[in-house]
């Protein structure tokens, strides 16, 4: 089996009222530690509003979902919030299967997330 291994592309931008994390790629057991490292660094700034732009994420497994849940829990400890944006159908389905969709605000666009 040979296949080029892709890492996640994670881009963070800070705005006055939000931090936007744009993620592209597949979030699984191999790549979720990379995402977790970015989240832990972000949490040190005690962000009040984190917008996770998942438009470019075609696959998430339970380790990815768990990493996002951990971000949300830790952000909440500092009264922060995490908003999910642009979930592809299968990614959204995973949040629904695990009933985590009710714990997150989910919007279609980053602009909507800014207003949420």
């Amino acid at each position, binding site marked *: 089996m040979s296949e080029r291994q*892709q890492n996640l592309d994670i881009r963070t931008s800070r705005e006055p009222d939000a931090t936007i994390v744009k993620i592209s790629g597949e979030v*699984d*057991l191999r790549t979720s530690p990379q995402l977790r490292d970015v989240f832990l660094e972000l949490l040190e700034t005690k962000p009040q509003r984190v917008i996770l732009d998942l438009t470019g994420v075609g696959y998430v*497994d339970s380790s990815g*979902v*768990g990493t996002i849940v951990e971000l*949300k829990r830790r952000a909440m400890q500092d009264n922060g919030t995490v908003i999910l944006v642009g979930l592809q159908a*299968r990614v959204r389905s995973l949040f629904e299967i*695990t*009933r985590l969709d009710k714990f997150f605000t989910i919007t279609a666009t980053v602009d909507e997330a800014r207003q949420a």
Partner: protein
Amino acid sequence: MSGPDALSLEITSDPAELPKVRTTVRNWSKRHDWQEDQIADIVLAVDEALSNVIRHGYDGEPGHKIKVAARMIEDPSHGPGLEISIRDFGKQVELDSIRGRDLDDLRPGGLGVHIIRSVMSCTKYSHADGGGMQLVMRKYKHRAGEDSQSPTEKP
């Protein structure tokens, strides 16, 4: 598991193996005329099962053997489907302890088993002869055959 339609893989307990397995299982399922949403379910179930083996069966240690086998089946009650077997040689855990967590609790972890049981028709964990665990899971092509209310262990 054998036969002309069977899939047989042997990988190591390295997360870097997962994307390759997902691609292989996706392509194999496509060749057997599964619908796109069903293929996504099958791929997710295999990925979650392998992740559980790597994390819990082998405590995240790479280099240990895992066997993946899949075959098409014709069940007398449920019709056409597939059966996937995941065999490891790691720790044996109490079968009663294999369960998804309470979904009303917002915390990371413990979701893999719940996801597998949600997307597959039925699952069965057992202690494999010679050590390790074996998971056998089935998915049927027709939803009427799925046991969505009671994801019990029955193949």
